[in-house]
């Protein structure tokens, strides 16, 4: 029996999703209009911290068209359990993880601007918003808790239920031998870096329709979610409706980037409200202002880094102390620095790491996953690599070369006890150096400088801990069935919110099953038809769901081959599968199409091989051999900085990526491009700033600046394909684009500015105003 691997895998097959999505025929939550649907609008706090002194909903309740107005007293006491599968139960429920206090509506006090105080249900969103305006709320403002470090000691508390604003901490240890190492090191460089608060901004904001039918005790949820299984489990815990009676469906989902991985308070409130109402479908479509003001945010992080370096430029030891704010109500723990510490050493041989981290609650929107939740490690480390190189008088590329993990170092055990294997950081670095043609760039840079123009070059490298596989994330299922007609359906626990899964998994199945891609249907996003899986996120789907689909395909093919062998009176070893036909090698006329085999399995079980049961169903589940599947990349960026205006023009952007076996290079490059765009945004444009009263300053797209097409350079791609140890040789790469691009852009800007003696910027965003401030100061 020979296989046909490579027929679809590795090809840039066009996305099957595109015809409907690009012509506006997707089916998103708001596109489904069930009869009798009611609409939700939230009354939200416009004060960051304060006590609610008056809350009167009587006028709102009286408005014609209003079905109900709920406040904390109506919904909070009904909550049964409130925890996310990824983090496990709360302490009081026998678990260990750290969560903020439970409430779906503000419990007597407000804790951030946007905090939902009341929930209005009406016959239309217009009326719901009119009624929301009629709710009388009076808040006695208190001084908000803000910042990353100040809240550690602040005795004003975000959550009065706790005794400190610190949500998680691991103090930086002081170890005498290490202090001595730093004291005697030839070079010691210390810097503090800061990210700019950002938010995910999916094109489709959050939204859900919840229909609880009290007579059947059944709940149907349609949601813009990354994980139907998570919202199903969450709703069951929240309300006490048996999980078997809850069904969650996500058709097309317009992006998530982590924002739709965890269930957030508004979604929980809508589930509770629909449960309490017990009759009509209740729909909440988050509008853009709500999404910017009250959906989870990230990247409000700082890092104090100290590197000790020997005389030749080898990194001897690093200290890193991270600070992050998790806002008031992160949907899970929020904090990500622990994971960042785990992978901080990245692609380098750093023998010693002394880590610390502290996360604090603040009176701002909760922190949650945003594409590369641990990205601070690379964003800060890769900037630090340039700062150190500059300070010790070494070229940043040379400094990286000296420290980077080489092929013969593998498998490499990091200072944080992670085992890196099947990665190619030095190969991707050299590929970028070659594509950039660094020597001629440096010559061009000098010529430009002579004309008064500032060009700069920056590099960013990382190792991505893709396909995290522990806890609920351990594995993914694939259930495959073949119809009488010989077509297959593969049901996955994943969800597609821009990932091309319908295309790429079909490529995997068609390749390993040996059929035409058009004969493969990929079904996901409905708990009634898809087996339990943790959803799509964490760069896992190709690796883990791909492995499951491959396993199922091979098992199905083996079954078909056995049936064919019986019918052809041949040995299975003499058969091959191609284009949906099983044939005898070398005798193509002795062949049976899948349809005939399927008909036999479904309709003529007596003709099946001895011991084989009727039907064609395969249940497979794949758990990768290691908890992380490592991928890696190097980014290179060339910018021109207008020294008079501080405007940055990205001239070239190069990514060399190793994600193992590529299923679909076009999709890989699309993932890279999207991630890089977000990373560029994080440096140059996006800043979800709060003022000193805790007011968010960027609640519309007028102020929250997403990068748009004209700001994007043409991306250039290089690929290194080294196989992982997973089934298909795949490595996840969905987040890396967003992780390595911020430092590449930042380093390029600082490289440009260094030519005129401007000290390097360290705090994002690097907007024109900040760049001119730096030039003026330098």
């Amino acid at each position, binding site marked *: 029996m020979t296989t046909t691997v490579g027929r679809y895998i590795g090809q840039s097959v066009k996305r099957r999703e595109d015809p409907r999505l690009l012509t506006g025929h997707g089916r998103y939550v708001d596109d489904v209009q069930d009869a009798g649907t009611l609409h939700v609008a939230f009354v939200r706090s416009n004060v960051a911290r304060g006590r609610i002194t008056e809350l009167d909903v009587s006028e709102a309740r009286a408005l014609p068209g209003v079905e109900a107005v709920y406040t904390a007293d109506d919904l909070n006491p009904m909550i049964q359990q409130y925890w996310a599968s990824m983090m496990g139960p709360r302490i009081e429920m026998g678990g260990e993880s750290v969560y903020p206090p439970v409430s779906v509506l503000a419990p007597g006090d407000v804790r951030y601007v946007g905090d939902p105080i009341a929930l209005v249900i009406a016959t239309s969103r217009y009326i719901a918003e009119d009624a929301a305006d009629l709710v009388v709320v009076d808040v006695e403002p208190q001084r908000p808790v803000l910042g990353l470090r100040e809240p550690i000691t602040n005795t004003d508390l975000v959550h009065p239920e706790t005794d400190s604003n610190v949500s998680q901490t691991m103090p930086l240890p002081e170890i005498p031998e290490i202090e001595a190492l730093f004291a005697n090191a030839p070079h010691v460089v210390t810097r503090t870096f800061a990210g700019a608060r950002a938010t995910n901004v999916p094109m489709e904001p959050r939204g859900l329709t919840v229909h609880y039918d009290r007579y059947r005790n059944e709940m149907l949820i349609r949601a813009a979610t990354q994980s139907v299984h998570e919202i199903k489990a969450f709703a069951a815990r929240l309300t006490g409706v048996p999980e078997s009676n809850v069904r969650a469906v996500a058709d097309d989902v317009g992006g998530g980037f982590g924002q739709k991985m965890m269930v957030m308070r508004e979604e929980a409130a809508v589930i509770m409200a629909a449960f309490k109402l017990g009759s009509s479908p209740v729909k909440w479509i988050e509008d853009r202002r709500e999404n910017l003001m009250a959906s989870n945010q990230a990247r409000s992080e700082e890092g104090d880094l100290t590197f000790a370096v020997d005389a030749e430029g080898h990194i001897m030891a690093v200290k890193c102390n991270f600070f992050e704010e998790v806002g008031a109500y992160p949907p899970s723990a929020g904090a990500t620095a622990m994971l960042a510490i785990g992978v901080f050493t990245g692609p380098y041989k750093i023998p010693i790491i002394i880590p610390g981290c502290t996360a604090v609650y603040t009176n701002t929107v909760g922190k949650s996953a945003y594409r590369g939740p641990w990205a601070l490690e690379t964003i800060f480390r890769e900037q630090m690599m340039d700062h150190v190189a500059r300070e010790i008088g070494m070229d940043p590329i040379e400094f990286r070369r000296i420290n980077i993990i080489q092929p013969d170092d593998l498998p490499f055990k990091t200072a944080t006890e992670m085992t890196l294997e099947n990665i190619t950081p030095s190969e991707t670095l050299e590929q970028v150096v070659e594509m950039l043609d660094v020597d001629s760039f440096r010559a061009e840079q000098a010529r430009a400088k002579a004309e008064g123009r500032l060009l700069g070059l920056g590099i960013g490298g990382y190792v991505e801990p893709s396909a995290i596989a522990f806890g609920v994330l351990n594995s993914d299922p694939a259930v495959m069935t073949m119809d009488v007609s010989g077509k297959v359906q593969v049901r996955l626990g994943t969800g597609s919110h821009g990932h091309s899964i319908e295309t790429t998994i079909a490529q995997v199945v068609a390749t390993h099953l040996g059929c035409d891609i058009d004969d493969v249907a990929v079904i996901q996003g409905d708990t009634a038809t898809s087996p339990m899986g943790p959803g799509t996120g964490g760069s896992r789907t190709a690796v883990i769901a791909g492995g499951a689909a491959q396993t199922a395909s091979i098992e199905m093919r083996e079954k078909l081959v056995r049936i064919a062998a019986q019918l052809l009176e041949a040995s299975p070893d003499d058969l091959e599968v191609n284009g949906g036909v099983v044939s005898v090698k070398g005798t193509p006329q002795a062949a049976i199409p899948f349809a005939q085999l399927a008909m036999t399995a479904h309709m003529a079980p007596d003709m099946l091989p001895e011991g084989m049961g009727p039907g064609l169903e395969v249940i497979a589940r794949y758990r990768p051999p290691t908890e992380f599947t490592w991928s890696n990349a190097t980014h290179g960026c060339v910018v021109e900085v207008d020294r*008079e205006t501080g405007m940055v023009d990205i001239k070239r952007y190069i990514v060399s990526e190793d994600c193992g076996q590529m299923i679909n290079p076009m999709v890989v490059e699309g993932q890279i491009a999207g991630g890089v765009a977000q990373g560029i945004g994080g440096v140059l444009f996006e800043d979800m700033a709060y003022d000193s009263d805790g007011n968010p*300053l960027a609640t519309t797209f007028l*102020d929250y600046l997403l990068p748009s097409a004209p700001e994007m350079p043409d991306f250039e791609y290089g690929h290194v394909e080294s196989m992982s140890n997973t089934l298909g040789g795949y490595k996840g790469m969905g987040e890396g684009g967003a992780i390595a691009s911020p430092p590449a852009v930042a380093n390029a800007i600082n490289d440009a500015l260094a030519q005129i003696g401007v000290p390097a910027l360290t705090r994002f965003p690097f907007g024109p105003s900040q760049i001119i401030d730096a030039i003026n100061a330098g």
Partner: protein
Amino acid sequence: MKPSKFHYHAPATIGDAVGLLGAHADEAKVLAGGQSLVPMMSLRLATFGHLVDLNKVDGLAGIERSNGHVRIGALTRQATAEHDTTVASDVPMMAKALPHIGHFQIRNRGTVGGSIAHADPASELPAVALALDATLEAAGPGGERQIAAADFFEGTWQTALAEDEILTAVRFPVWGAASGFAVEEVARRHGDFAICGAVCGVELDGDAIVRAAIGLFGVGPTPVRSTLAEQALIAGGAGSDLADIARQAADPLDPSDDIHASGAYRKQIAAVVVRRALTKAIEEARS
């Protein structure tokens, strides 16, 4: 983001429109392209009981040249003006400013009059009107009146128009053949409102500058005309130290901070955009 309830009126004549504004007083608002008004209503930053839509009113759109002026009807779409040959040849500063307004989709709906009546301090067209000494034509209950651009812009989103007045057209004087114009602005992204920008024009007679216009936007509550710098430029001629002229234009400014840039940045950059625009304008006038 749903507006609160309002009554919608679509009058066919200016008289009817003015009548509706009078009848509903401060409850009423004029709707032109809707590119600024509709978002404000959807965000409930503004609520009006009555919208008076000008889009069905006869004779409010159109571009014509007469008596050394180009007259642009208030309802003329920004995109129409942008691609109009009369505007391109006779009011080049306008033609150069228009592509900086948002994106083409916005200019397809947004109107010339709407942009000027809205009077956003970071808008290009108010600065063009001010720099070029445009005349604004308005219709109200008492008939028509003409307002000099210098008297029109009173503050952020505030103009000399009364609540029951409609801007009907804007008239630009046509400059001589030896003129040059340039628009320079710094915006965070393509299509964004400018952090700061300059519109400049010069008319030459040999090396002498016989007419100069320097307008700035994004630097205060209204567009700013730099009369002193214009005079210095006229006194110094085409060989003037343009950096020095630009500094004179920027010196009196006192812009404020916002999330996109500090006031100090705006002031510093004002001198840059004026110098760059003047350099280009003089170059164009010479060619």
